[in-house]
């Protein structure tokens, strides 16, 4: 299906170009074919307009021919962008030299970043062990005047393609103190992300939108620019900065997409004040609809599923607020090191008067016979029905399946994401390895872990749970099975 779409687009493009210039078309077609062939020869014919890797676009031509993991949309958007740039370059008649396309490694698409002005895409797969990609990222950050955060410590080889930062080396070390390049609200947000003060995907999205509100309030359009285009360009370095502080989550990515769409939809004759007010209202509405009301809807549906006398298992990142005491149930909170987020969840539940038990994840198989339902929270729901959540969630789901305990996932629709992943290795987040160091009875065994050459500390943040282990997904749209996620996504796209 994806191949067909691609071919269709290509034909359309060729037809369009034929109207303009026959000669160029053939070149174009030839070049396109070259690209498609996943060039064994990196040399592209010189008179042809240069491939789009001119600026800092990392390795787009490493379009993997293996479309299995690739969502169709990205390819189409890439083509559109390439076409647009080629028209522009043809107009300016700039003939730059061919940039030798470095042959991609076994990994798939590189962080796309600069490709579309409207839609911001998250880096599908970060390629930290590919030096060209790292160089391109560094160049891009330099252009945006954002410092590059350096990796810390030895990385376990299976995850060496991901970034690993240290909390003790914040990005603000390299920024000037009254930050002029980056809006102070964004600097504050980045700090709060990297120190873990704002954690959890809902909180991060809300904080992000709040910071964007402040940015929009303080924004003034420069004289010869249009708000719809300039504001989007202003937001790009902020997003890179936030990405450097802590990799963006799927929910944040969707929020950013929404905002960028709203900004670029502002008609050019709209006055600046009106436009700003409109944008601020959009953000308020988004938060209200997608987060606050969605949480209420989920709570309403979940209550229907809980019967009296139930025992429920909760790993901590479930947005479970507003549980009224209509039913009598008790809760078991499962927690895991090093974040120990369950303590906060426990506090909130006990405050509401629900009787709770607290266990660590190693006790899950011991406690599961007592449990009647398992509620999981999700960080994101992927397009193939996999649930991406805190590390340890898939374990709980697995054990619950073994004990025949129903597993319900609570997730707002704005966290649905078009990415597809079948394992937890390809795209994940590595947290500070020093978090694993603990001092007991005055002794810190791992204090000098860096000196031991064969020792690596791994602090994973996310993992994916296959849909076979999940019985029901409770969203603000209702209760759907895991495999209906692509349907929801399709409906959402049609709406937008």
């Amino acid at each position: 299906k994806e191949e067909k779409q691609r071919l269709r687009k290509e034909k359309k493009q060729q037809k369009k170009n034929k109207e303009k210039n026959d000669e160029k078309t053939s070149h174009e077609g030839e070049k396109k074919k070259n690209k498609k062939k996943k060039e064994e020869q990196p040399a592209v014919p010189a008179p042809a307009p240069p491939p789009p890797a001119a600026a800092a676009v990392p390795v787009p031509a490493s379009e993997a021919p293996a479309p299995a993991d690739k969502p169709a949309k990205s390819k189409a958007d890439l083509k559109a962008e390439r076409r647009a740039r080629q028209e522009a370059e043809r107009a300016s008649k700039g003939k730059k030299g061919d940039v030798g396309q470095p042959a991609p490694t076994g990994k798939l698409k590189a962080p796309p970043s600069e490709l579309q002005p409207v839609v911001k895409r998250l880096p599908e797969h970060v390629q930290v062990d590919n030096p060209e990609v790292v160089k391109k990222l560094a160049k891009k950050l330099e252009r945006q005047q954002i410092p590059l955060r350096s990796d810390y410590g030895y990385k376990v080889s299976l995850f060496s393609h991901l970034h690993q930062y240290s909390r003790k080396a914040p990005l603000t070390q390299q920024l000037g103190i009254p930050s002029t390049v980056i809006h102070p609200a964004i600097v504050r947000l980045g700090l709060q992300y990297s120190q873990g003060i704002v954690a959890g995907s809902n909180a991060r999205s809300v904080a992000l939108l709040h910071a964007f509100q402040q940015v929009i309030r303080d924004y003034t359009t420069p004289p010869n620019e249009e708000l719809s285009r300039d504001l989007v360009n202003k937001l790009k370095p902020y997003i890179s900065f936030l990405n450097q502080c802590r990799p963006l989550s799927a929910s944040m990515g969707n929020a950013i997409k929404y905002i960028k769409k709203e900004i670029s939809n502002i008609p050019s004759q709209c006055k600046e004040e009106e436009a700003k007010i409109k944008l601020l209202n959009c953000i308020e509405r988004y938060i209200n609809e997608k987060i606050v009301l969605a949480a209420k809807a989920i709570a309403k549906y979940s209550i229907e599923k809980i019967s009296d006398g139930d025992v429920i298992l909760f790993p901590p990142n479930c947005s479970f607020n507003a549980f009224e005491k209509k039913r009598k149930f008790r809760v078991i909170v499962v927690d895991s090191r090093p974040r120990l987020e369950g303590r906060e969840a426990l506090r909130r539940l006990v405050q509401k008067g629900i009787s709770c038990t607290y266990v660590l994840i190693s006790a899950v198989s011991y406690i599961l016979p007592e449990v009647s339902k398992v509620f999981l929270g999700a960080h994101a729901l992927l397009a193939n029905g996999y649930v991406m959540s805190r590390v340890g969630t898939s374990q709980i789901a697995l054990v619950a399946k073994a004990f025949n305990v129903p597993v319900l996932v609570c997730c707002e629709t704005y966290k649905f994401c078009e990415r597809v992943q079948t394992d937890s290795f390809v795209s994940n987040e590595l947290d500070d390895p020093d978090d694993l160091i603990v001092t007991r009875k005055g002794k810190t065994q791992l204090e000098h872990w860096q000196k031991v050459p064969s020792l690596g500390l791994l602090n994973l943040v996310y993992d994916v749970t296959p849909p076979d282990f999940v019985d029901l997904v409770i969203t603000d749209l209702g209760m759907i099975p895991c495999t209906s996620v692509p349907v929801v996504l399709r409906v959402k796209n049609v709406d937008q």
Partner: protein
Amino acid sequence: MELQAVLMAAGGGSRMPDLTYNTPKPMLPVGNKPLMWHPLNLLERVGFEEVIVITTKEVQKMMSTDPKMKDVKMKLDVVCIQEDGDMGTADALRHIQQKIKTDVLVVSCDLITDVALHEVVDLFRAHNATLAMLMSKAHDFTETVPGQKGKKKTGEQRDFVGVDQSGKRLLFMANEADLEDGLSIRKSIMRKHPRMHIKTGLVDAHLYCLKKAVVDFLADNKSISSIRGELLPYLVRKQFSKTTNCPKSKDDADDQTQKTADGSTNSTELLICSRDEPLLQLAQERSCWNDHRGDMSEAYHGGKLRCYVHIMDQGLCYRVNTLAAYIEANRLASKLLEEPAVHPSAVISERCQMGPDSIIGAQCQVADKTSIKRSTIGNSTTVKEKVKVTNSIIMHGVTIEEGCNIHGCVICSNAVIGRGADLKYCLVGNGQQIEAEAERTNEVIVGTDQLMEI
């Protein structure tokens, strides 16, 4: 804009009268640069482009003529205040309230430090704090101070600083002078922070990040005149005050008018309460982070006013407000500065022995057979033959005749040391003349006009 820097340079240097009766404290040379150059350099290095300098007219005049101050590339907005010394630091802030548009970073002119400023400012940003300050472990001054008789009194006024377990949140601050019998800590504080570390050996660097609301609060509360003495303890106490309940205040919007009539205290509390917007509140609710654990309250115990402190344990941090600190700072100035120790325009003869720790200023003339070790020599100073200078600070325009032996002294500007004089641990005031063949030990030699001042 995120932060505005304010440099307080109107202080009188009341603890070192011998040095400051002629030269105002901000212009005393440390490492051959005026004292206020050092904090300005710190701000410039970090990335500030503008600084508001609060100082006196005398200092402003001296600033405009001093060549070293022209090195400062930032834009200095000098605000002059009266010299009568009644204006405290908080009064000065109130004076410039109109210029303050965002949060302020207040620095004192006598601070010499190499702290990584982002540590303090990060605390301020990340926790949305009302106050963030810098403190450092106090170093003992090892050098003998000229003119000091006997051991240094250790019964000086100590500061008691209470921090929480993480060492960042400031819970308690009091000076020994304010405490009568003992230290009393409110139960409400102990309930919220059962583990408190109380430290006494800390030096307050007088570097504060304050929210704009605090400056507005000062404008309304004219009774507070010193930042360190009054404002800071007030803010620290207010963190745990029962009346800082902002959500309640929103409901009482109608009653606000009554409250303002009732007393300015209520409205000022409303002002100082960092009112978090509802979205931030929402984000905090959804976030699974708490700054403490073990009790049922939310992050920060729901308090909106937060004070943080960054305590440096490594690195330099000096406040040059006593003679001993001044000497120590000069000693270490060569480490701080990146310029070459010997100024290129100084004329130094070849037979002179100069130690690596010494700094020689511009247009100096050092003759043969002199030995200069661990000393700082100011601009336009003439040192004749056979002079031995060790462990001393010699300011600008001094003439030292032949054969002198100067050890551990502080010699102020334009003094003349006669031939063959032998000075140990002395302080020679401005423009003084030491007669030839004089032998002085541990004395303060100042003019008679200064003796009249009290």
